[in-house]
């Protein structure tokens, strides 16, 4: 529940950050809408440069957050769609220099295999620089068609940013949905 408090608190802060966004959300009658990034398709899991060696491993340094953040299989990416910022000059939770992080985005729920908790993951896009082109990844667990705006990852969520040009996507922990979901 502490996790949930954190999430609710962050959600409130996130919404409070943007006035224009708040009015949009009010118009929609939604607390938080949208979608992480976009792309799609099975090519997502293929190397963008099949000739060269794949990206080498990037890990958290803590066993409670296991996995390689340059691969599509990393646990936080369960519903991501786009280039992984870890491969683009940013990090799993940071946009690359020169870009702007989208202020609102789609929220997914992914289970951390180490602590078996379901975390709320915010897939904020990074905007204002052209396609990163590295580590394209698409997973669709919980993805629904665009009619359910906040559950669809095909939107370009570079909205409310100075430019709508898409660079890459992050996967930021914003809270815990459930301490023991299984």
């Amino acid at each position, binding site marked *: 529940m502490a996790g949930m408090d954190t999430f609710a608190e962050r959600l409130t802060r996130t919404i409070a950050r943007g006035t224009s966004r708040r009015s949009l959300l009010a118009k929609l*009658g939604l607390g938080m809408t949208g979608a992480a990034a976009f792309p799609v398709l099975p090519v997502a899991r293929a190397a963008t440069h099949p000739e060269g060696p794949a990206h080498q491993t990037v890990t958290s340094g803590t066993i409670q957050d296991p996995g390689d953040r340059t691969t599509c299989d990393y646990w936080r990416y369960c519903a991501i769609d786009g280039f992984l910022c870890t491969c683009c000059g940013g990090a799993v939770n940071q946009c690359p220099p020169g870009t702007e992080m989208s202020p609102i985005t789609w929220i997914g729920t992914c289970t951390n295999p180490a602590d078996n908790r379901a975390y709320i993951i915010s897939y904020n896009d990074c905007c204002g620089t052209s396609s990163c082109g590295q580590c394209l990844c698409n997973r669709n667990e919980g993805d629904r068609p665009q009619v359910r705006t906040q559950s669809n990852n095909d939107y*370009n969520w570079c909205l409310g940013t100075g430019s709508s040009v898409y660079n890459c996507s992050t996967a930021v922990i914003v809270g815990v949905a459930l301490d023991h979901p299984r």
Partner: protein
Amino acid sequence: MLRQSGRKWIGLLPSALALATSSPALADGAAYPAALPAEPMPAVAHLPAAWPKSWVLIHDFNFNSIVDGRVVVVDTASANQPLKGIVRAAQFGNALLSVKRGEILTAETFYSRLTRGTRTDAITFWNLTDLKPTGEVVLPGGKRQQSVTYPQLFQFTNDEKWALVANFTPAQSVSVVDLDGRAVLGEIDLPGCSQIYPTGTRGFSSFCADGSLFSVALDATGKVARSGTIRRVQDIDQQALFSTPAWVGRTAWFVGQRGVLQGFDFSGDLAKMIPGAFTVGTAAGAIPEWRPSGWQVINADAAGHLYVLMNPAGKEGSHKDGGTEVWVFDTAKKVRTARIALKAQSIAVAVTREDIPHLVLARADGVIDVYDAVSGAFVRSLGATVAYNPVTITPVP
């Protein structure tokens, strides 16, 4: 210090001139008494006024430079020169093909400095015969919806005299554009509803987040004349309908993520649900089960048969992975009439309107494959020779 020829070079390639002034002789005896003729220039290829039915438009999303998206004109009957031309579809652009208007229309977004600066959204008109632009309509407000390519973000209505453009800021609305008048007529607010299905003489429908279907009939000035809602047309949690349907005349057939097939009649002012949904059914060889999967996952031939991309590893989250088979359905008898095994996992399917119709499949690796739609036999592969990331396919009607 360095060796210097000292020779002046002015004009043509010196080597060519030098050679040309030496004494010519007949090449290889008398085999070729005449040289190949000089060829006319400038020369730019044109396209036929009536495009063959083997042609399709393929949308190239161009992931690696989304700002430089494009639509390609492809002859699926040509194994060695399938690419006929390229039309710009910049920054999550959308495109429409109109044989009646003799043009392709694109809805695009531009920045004055490619990635930054002033944003301009516009519809551009491109001639079918020379693929050159003839004009544009600027769309105000910088609100055009940007998504991975969905045909339903840019649609015709009013007998192709108007276009409808989906907006998303994330507030949702639809802009109504008079194409011949080159003017934006107005904007219809659409809170909670998305995508555009042309409906009746002059109007559209959209699916809404509460599971309903909302229809709007427009008057001659583009304002709302009438509207209506059908509640509970889909279960988004358990059986969400793929957004892009197969069109059979004014009937659209949708497939659900778990295989339901549901028709809607969009011929009247307000959409109607067609009674008698059925499912794609089951088959052996699946782990755990066959489900529809891909990007453009369902399409129809001229006779109204449905073709659905099927994936044998169906589960939650598998719906965009692509299919290894195409299943064919008779909507009158509500039965599956054929299973077509594909050479490779494919993400988009379309059917040409040729006398002998062909299935056109876009593969995840960019290859385009062509099959006989009746027999299911593989006919030819075009290779990965037309697009970086082919995501949707539009046959010449």
